[in-house]
């Protein structure tokens, strides 16, 4: 089993490395987006899949970091080596502020994060003398360190791939650490964890800030890919879609959010090319996932595997 999974991972990695050579710029671009939004979905899922908190404000961290990078690079000609960390820092600081929303649980947490998300969107949208309003910030350069820089979307694809692989490894370590197990414990039963002496709110707060930092990293990757940012990046649909990606792919897993991002983005690009009602299709995916595949693609795969392995068991 483990050997099979290793082989599968290697095949996937080889496919990812070969993609720009076989598939051309459109698919390479789509895959880059899939990695970036997959990372955003993964950050949402740290709270959703591991701690049971459904945040609808993650577009805020994503956008604040993207805006920070864009404004620093375009208006103040700050180099990537400073702008990118500044972006992550700005998004993480915002997460540290918004993190106090872990004082609430359940539906109240969902609603407060929606309201917080709208504060950020409103500022991006209306404070146009600073953010550029609806126009956003254009002409963001490709990232460059020292004299060496990215010059094409293909090169950028590999950079993003490397970053998300590192993130995935770090994430794996995190969720298997005592910290990650603590989160799972809180998700299962907060009162029990409290009686065991856990300061659950502090635990959740730390998870929220970490998750915000990850979303900020996705924001940095996004702005260098799109080379443009406007208030849409901070909008409610981005937060909803990130959660949807995590759930469609398989919440609580690492590969799930990326698979989900692939499904959602692929579907949107593909369907919108021939069918006008693409929002309805997305809506149908939401509904179908909730009703029939709450464990997402990963869950479906597990079910299929279980079904195929069953005939080997001895009959009654």
């Amino acid at each position, binding site marked *: 089993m483990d050997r099979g999974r290793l082989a599968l991972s290697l095949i996937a990695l080889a496919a990812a490395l070969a993609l720009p050579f076989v598939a051309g710029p459109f698919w390479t671009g789509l895959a880059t987006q899939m990695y970036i939004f997959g990372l955003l979905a993964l950050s949402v899922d740290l709270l*959703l899949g591991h701690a049971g908190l*459904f945040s*609808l404000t993650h577009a805020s961290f994503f956008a604040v970091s993207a805006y920070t990078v864009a404004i620093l690079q375009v208006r103040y000609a700050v180099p990537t080596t400073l702008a990118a960390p500044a972006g992550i820092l700005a998004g993480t600081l915002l997460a540290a502020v918004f993190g*106090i*929303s872990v*004082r*609430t649980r*359940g*539906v*109240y947490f*969902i*609603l*407060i994060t*929606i*309201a*917080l998300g*709208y*504060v950020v*969107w*409103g*500022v991006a*949208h*209306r*404070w*146009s*003398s600073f953010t550029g309003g609806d126009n956003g910030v254009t002409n963001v350069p490709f990232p460059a360190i020292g004299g060496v820089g990215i010059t094409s979307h293909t090169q950028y694809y590999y950079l993003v791939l490397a970053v998300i692989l590192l993130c995935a490894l770090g994430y794996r370590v995190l969720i298997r650490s005592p910290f990650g197990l603590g989160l799972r414990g809180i998700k299962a039963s907060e009162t029990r964890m409290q009686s065991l002496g856990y300061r659950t709110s502090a635990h959740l707060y730390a998870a929220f800030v970490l998750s915000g930092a990850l979303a900020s990293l996705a924001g940095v990757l996004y702005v260098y890919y799109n080379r443009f940012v406007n208030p849409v990046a901070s909008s*409610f649909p981005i937060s*909803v879609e990130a*959660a*949807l990606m995590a*759930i469609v792919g398989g919440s609580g897993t690492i590969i799930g959010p990326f698979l989900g991002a692939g499904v959602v983005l692929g579907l949107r690009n593909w369907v919108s090319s021939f069918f*006008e*009602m*693409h*929002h*309805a299709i*997305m*809506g*149908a*995916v*939401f*509904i179908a*996932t*909730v*009703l029939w595949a*709450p464990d997402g693609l990963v869950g479906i795969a597990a079910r299929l595997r279980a079904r195929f392995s069953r005939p080997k068991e001895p009959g009654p």
Partner: protein
Amino acid sequence: MLTSAILQAINGVSLAALLFLLASGFTLSFGLMRVVNMAHGAYYLLGGYIGLSVAQKTGSFALAIVAGGAAIAVLGYFIDHFLIRRTGENHLAQVLLTVGVAFVLGDVALAIWGGDNLMVPAPKFLKGSVVLPGDVYYPMYRLVMIFFGVFVGVVLWLLYKKTQIGAVVRAGVDDREQVNATGINVDLLFVMVSALASFLAGMAGVVGGAFLTLYPGAEWEILVYALVVVIVGGLGSLGGAMIGALVVGLLDAYGRWLLPEFSYFVLFGPIALLMLFRPRGLFGKEH
């Protein structure tokens, strides 16, 4: 300056009246059934469009209001029965599911009524303006809307506080087990409250469509306002929805006027703070 301040106050209250129509249904269905229905904005839009078609065919605004409300009540019933009910009390699933429903409804509305910006035709006597003291002109329609909002509020309050059904609903909001124990048909009660909530949303669409106009995307804009109203007032509280609508309407009007660049901040900032210190809103109860 003073005239402007007064005008803004009336503007705020008239927006509040509309928001109350929408938020009261949302808050009731949460209070009783613990349903968070993100499709409420789509109900508003669809109700408005249906009312528009009825008004164009029959020329009657009153009929449009009733038809918009009734059509959405039926639709709401089916969505509730066949989709939302299946999520149990999993709010996460409810939010995702109803967002999906809203996407589908929005696209269906777009396919039928197109992307144009449409206005529900208000009757002749509601058009034009009223002269208020101090030579201030104010739209007749919006003044009447304030009265309509108050009227609906009073009717709902009477239903809630003075009738037997209301008593059961109140009991249900406080403690559902208790209602189950009294032998009342809870399913029927849920259907009725859910239909009422949908009816209010559809009706709000017709009323709002006559001054805010109807267009694709209106469902999300209005939903966020309604959500904030409910957050401020406290989920499940009718009085809270009324106070919340006033707070949101006035903050919105004054924010746009005095600090246009930060109007969303003026609106959502204090509300986010409020949530931190009173997570259940002004009148919300512990659940």
